[in-house]
């Protein structure tokens, strides 16, 4: 089965006065139909740059220097990079919808929600307001909101959680195959986060779309994702199924992330942050970029950047020459990593 989205060797640079910032380097991954992929990383890891480039919404200072973004829809496979403007506009939202982080400012403040539905619909050829209205009601019911109140409202009259739901409802308007969510639960309180995550889980099962979501929050990945990608300094450092990455990580950065998550139960004192900070993306070191913060780094690590290689579990790649050492430390048990490493 062809994956619906196949990203190959994507590299994106930002132009700055100090030189090009290599924000995303040689990123490759696939997404199958109905699959949910989580892209996890710190701020500055390139995850948002990656996401917006998938629908070619990057700012003017960003440039895709190489790679392909292959999308397979009803009409075959196309490289998004080569789509002409009008087809790109048609592609956006109807095939692939993007829900931005902090839905707080995703809506035009001076027109009401109904008009924004109409704008979106009309931009894709749905001109009959009755049809649009019926569909809007259907979608708002799906996200458990009252259509009468919401459609009439202006964005400032709705809370953050409500706006996020409206945006999710709007994203389903044209029944896209792929939905990209950038930090969908950041900036929301914890109860609202819970309801959004539940909502996304239900919708995903009911409607069968594929999802990419970007986050720095591992717990949302654990709940919703089938596969996970960890990004560091613009490159993919590990790619695996969610259970593999949580119980059997093979890259020191993934291990570090997992250990940094505080747990409700379990060993006190086993939580640690990763010391140090991400590298300068303009002048990259010759070897692995994680070396300054890596507890397992040796001399060979600084010589050249490691390749993404398959490890001992199926469909699982890691970018570390010492992945076997990590495997020894972490093992293969279905037990949380935090309880395995007592350092």
């Amino acid at each position, binding site marked *: 089965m062809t994956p619906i989205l196949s990203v190959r060797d994507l590299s994106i640079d930002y132009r700055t006065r100090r030189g090009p910032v290599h924000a995303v380097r040689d990123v490759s991954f696939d997404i199958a139909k109905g699959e949910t992929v989580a892209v996890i990383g710190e701020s500055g890891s390139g995850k948002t740059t990656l996401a917006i480039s998938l*629908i070619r919404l990057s700012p003017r200072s960003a440039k895709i220097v190489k790679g392909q973004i292959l999308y397979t829809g009803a009409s075959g496979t196309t490289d998004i990079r080569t789509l002409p403007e009008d087809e790109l*506009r048609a592609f*956006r939202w109807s095939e692939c*919808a993007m829900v*931005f982080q902090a839905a707080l400012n995703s809506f035009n*403040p*001076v027109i009401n929600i109904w008009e924004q539905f109409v704008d*979106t619909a009309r*931009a894709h050829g749905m001109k009959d307001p009755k049809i649009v209205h019926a569909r809007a009601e259907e979608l708002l019911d799906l996200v458990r909101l009252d259509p009468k109140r919401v459609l009439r*409202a202006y964005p400032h009259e709705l809370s953050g959680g409500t706006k996020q739901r409206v945006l999710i409802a709007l994203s389903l308007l044209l029944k896209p195959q792929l939905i990209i969510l950038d930090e969908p639960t950041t900036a929301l309180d914890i109860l609202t986060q819970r309801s959004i995550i539940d909502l996304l889980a239900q919708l995903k099962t009911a409607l069968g779309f594929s999802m990419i979501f970007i986050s720095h929050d591992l717990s949302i990945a654990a709940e919703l994702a089938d596969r996970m990608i960890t990004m560091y300094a613009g490159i993919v450092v590990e790619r695996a199924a969610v259970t593999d990455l949580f119980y059997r990580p093979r890259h020191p950065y993934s291990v570090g992330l997992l250990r940094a998550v505080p747990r409700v139960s379990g060993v006190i004192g086993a939580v640690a942050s990763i010391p140090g900070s991400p590298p300068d993306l303009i002048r990259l070191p010759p070897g692995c970029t994680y070396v300054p913060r890596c507890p397992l780094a040796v001399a060979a690590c600084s010589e050249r950047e490691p390749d993404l290689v398959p490890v001992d579990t199926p469909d699982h790649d890691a970018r570390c020459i010492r992945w076997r050492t990590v495997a020894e430390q972490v093992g293969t048990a279905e037990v949380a990593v935090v309880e395995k490493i007592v350092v």
Partner: protein
Amino acid sequence: MTATPADAKMVAQRFPTTPRASRARHILGYWRHPVAQALLKAFLTVFVTTTITFFLIRLMPGNPIDIKIDELTKDGLMTYAEARSQAASLFSIDLERPLPEQYFSFITSVARGDLGYSFVSQGTPVTAIVLAVLPWTLFAVGTGLLLSFSVGVFLGLFAAYNRNTLIDHVLSIGGSVISAVPSYFIALLIVIVLGVELRIVPYTQMRGALSAGITPGFTLEFIGDVLYHAILPVSVFFLATLGHWILGMKSATVNALEEDYVIAARARGLSDGRIMTAYVGRNAVLPLVTQFAITAGYAIGGSILIEQYFVYQGVGLRLQAALLQRDYPVMQGILLLVTLAVVIANLLADLLYSRLDPRIGRAGGATGT
């Protein structure tokens, strides 16, 4: 600062919700309503202006009343007492009563529309004099400003969308240059450069507000004539304010283009045209609407010289005549009525703004949960 049960109890004790208290709070709640606040501010502005003129006229050394009394008693034809009462009646002030009473009666006269009588044309009420000329100025300023707003907003939007290209530089520098030239100089330059020197503009014919012999009425001839004579003043008000709108709209548009909802709209596949009008344009123009009335106030200020150069019979020309003749009641009346006009313009602009921006104007703001 999280509320504790102890805090809640304290609040309930200090602000009991008796029927009377809740009704009082309900009425005071109207206070928050932007319309009520705008009306109050308008009223206060006129009130403050009236007070300022009263004190200037009564309390400054060498004030107009004393000057008038001197004038009247100069040739010995009138006694001091007679002169005093005549001067007082010209100003609608009773000099016999103590100061606070004078102030109060002055305020009430003004409220009734009695602004005194002209010094020069004895017996003509100031209100009538000013109201005869004010509409001409308001017409010229209003037309000029509406035109410059429409053109300027469009050009500013255009410049922002073509940022850092030649057209942007031309419009920005052009806007800066025009805004630097004082409005009255634009008028003067039109007269002396285009009119006297280059003889392009037939300023002698275009002078005045009306040609001789045309009778006012709702005829095409009259309207055409009015427009013909209004061309020069309107052009000056147009040019004087155009730069401000171009630069203001460009800056507002540049800001709006960086907003999240613009990127989100593009992600939804909306066309650039729709985004430009309903998403960028409508948001960028909002701050400019609030400046419209204030700009009108400034423009009217320049009319005192502009109308002089075009001999356009508006309020500016009349003010200049009053200056030359030391006709203080008329000066005061013009100040009050022009302020009133600007205040009303402000109110209308605020009302319009509250209709355009849904975040203001609904007394309450965020009500959702």
